[in-house]
């Protein structure tokens, strides 16, 4: 496993993994946000690559993608942002979250060269199911990049065993059917589903899709090893687009987002502190 993953994610409980879109609304914000999220207790960061047709995403992340695309963000440019984050002291792992077409166009060779040049730790491709990801998983293993796998409440037991046997880093469990976005209810079978996943998983089990409130995190805490929060944070960023784009107001807006993220992680804070 990738070194940063083994230090920051492996064998950990109460993981907090935020998701942001690269270049939303601009590069400076993305770099500063990563650092803020780390200081708010993030154990790893998912860096979403904006795409014109993000099938697995709901309106909040679609809008963020549109904002970043307007600024000319690409997969290539997004990967280089990770170097800038590291230069400013970011220590936790960064996972690139990209739709397959973007990766295909950049080309596997160029993609992996960029990942290693820029110190990226993980990869997640939401529209590449297990059957189609073999080549990429092999390549990740060879390059010491952690390939993150997803499982859903609709995943059959047979598939689950197969996916889990190859999974690395943490297992991304989709809380509900549907696209990314905040929701008040999870899939009715979410707890049975998580219990089942944990029965097979040897790596931390993290829950994403729709996690937006401290109470939800509290409810899920005993059934998983961590949460992934995307749309709820991205929404905060979207609401502050203009402030974030201006240098004189950027820090203030970032501080507001930081406060919001801290309020999310607060119930876990004691635990976070305990284990550190």
């Amino acid at each position, binding site marked *: 496993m990738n070194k940063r993953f083994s230090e920051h994610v492996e064998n950990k409980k109460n993981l907090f993994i935020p998701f942001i879109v690269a270049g939303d609304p601009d590069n400076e914000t993305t770099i500063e946000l990563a650092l803020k999220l780390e200081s708010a207790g993030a154990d790893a960061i998912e860096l979403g690559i904006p795409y014109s047709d993000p099938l697995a995403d709901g309106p909040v992340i679609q809008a963020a993608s549109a904002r970043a695309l307007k600024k000319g963000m690409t997969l290539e440019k997004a990967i280089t942002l990770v170097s800038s984050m590291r230069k400013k002291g970011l220590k936790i792992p960064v996972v690139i979250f990209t739709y397959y077409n973007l*990766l295909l166009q950049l080309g596997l060779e160029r993609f992996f060269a960029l990942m290693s040049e820029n110190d990226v730790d993980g990869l997640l491709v939401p529209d590449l199911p297990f*059957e189609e990801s073999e080549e990429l998983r092999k390549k990740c293993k060879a390059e010491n990049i952690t390939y993150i796998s997803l499982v859903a409440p609709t995943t059959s037991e047979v598939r689950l065993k197969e996916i889990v046997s190859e999974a690395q880093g943490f297992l991304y469990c989709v809380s509900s059917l549907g696209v990314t976005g905040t929701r008040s209810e999870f899939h009715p079978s979410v707890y049975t589903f998580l219990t089942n996943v944990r029965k097979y998983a040897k790596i931390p089990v993290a829950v994403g899709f729709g996690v937006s409130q401290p109470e939800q995190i509290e409810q899920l805490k005993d059934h998983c090893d961590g949460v992934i929060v995307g749309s709820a944070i991205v929404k905060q960023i979207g609401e502050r687009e203009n402030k974030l784009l201006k240098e004189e107001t950027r820090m203030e807006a970032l501080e507001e987002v930081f406060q919001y993220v801290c309020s999310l992680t607060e119930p876990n804070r004691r635990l976070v502190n305990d284990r550190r």
Partner: protein
Amino acid sequence: MSVTLPNEKGRFGQFGGKFVPETLMQALEELESSLKDAIQDELFKSQLEEELHQYAGRTTPLTYAENCTSELGGAKIYLKREDLNHTGAHKINNAIGQALLAKRMGKHKIVAETGAGQHGVASATVAARFGLECKVFMGEEDMRRQALNVFRMQLLGAEVVPVASGSKTLKDATNEAIRYWVSNVEDTFYLIGSVVGPHPYPMMVREFQRIIGDETKKQFLEVDGKLPDLIVACVGGGSNAIGMFFPFIEDDVSLVGVEAAGKGIATGMHAATIAKGRLGVIHGSMTYLLQNEAGQIQEPYSISAGLDYPGIGPEHAYLAETGRVHYTSATDEEALNALKFLSQTEGIIPAIESAHALAEAFKRAKEMDKNESIVVCLSGRGDKDVHTLMEKMGGKS
């Protein structure tokens, strides 16, 4: 040339496959096994046949376009009249097949996407016929262009959901339909209208549309005692074309698919995916795709709402790569001229989609011998396009 494709991974050569979020994988596996089961079931087959004959109005005629032929002075032109199907296009063949399958699988809700509205109308129609709840996603721009079809769907009891994202056309309607399907996959059947999407859709839609080519072959042999020399069909996603071509793949017949060149391929305002697309992934399938350098999907353009799709069925991509089918394109203007010509020589107003195929057929007929024959798939009728035609031609022709 192999007609045993796709393989077990849903691939036609390098094209096809399943590129979807994990949430949908179970539904695709379930669909795959239900389909396999259904097409071997005599009861399902006879039910499908019965509906196609007694409800959709098949067999559709093969009309000899005598006036066209004598005016152009070359090869004999025949039209496979999919426009005479119930609801006015070939789309009903597939919609009936998938709706029967949905019922068999115990799904009571269907979701569909539509561009020109023909597939939406077909979906709404079969939903009414088989007692299914139906939701149709449609781009706002297409809703404007195809207001008549929007009303028809509503009249049939379907809910038409406007899509305001992207170019507000078929690509965006498809994105939204997939998003809806991911959220409701446990009780909803996604009725895809073309030979696109993840496996097994391209194969399934082909199987429900191959009746076009199967009938054509039989009919043509009856009138001419041999096979035609050339078959032409329009290609957006490519369902009427694959339905027409597939039964002829192993025969000595030239096959030509016609894409929409819009305002001209050089202008960038077109939907000519095979001519200008690069290998990529769209809506669950690996195929040729109109995209920019970085891999962002480009908005296609065509006067015809049924052809402006940035991807193409993976089997067409394969047939293009292997050279078995030749793909070319016709501009808006060429299609409109062909539309006028057919209307005034034969008294048939074709859909603008089909007029793209006619444009190519008319061009080729002149260069061919009188003893040779061309069959054009007349995929749909032009009633739905009258509004667009009036705007374009100023109410005159």
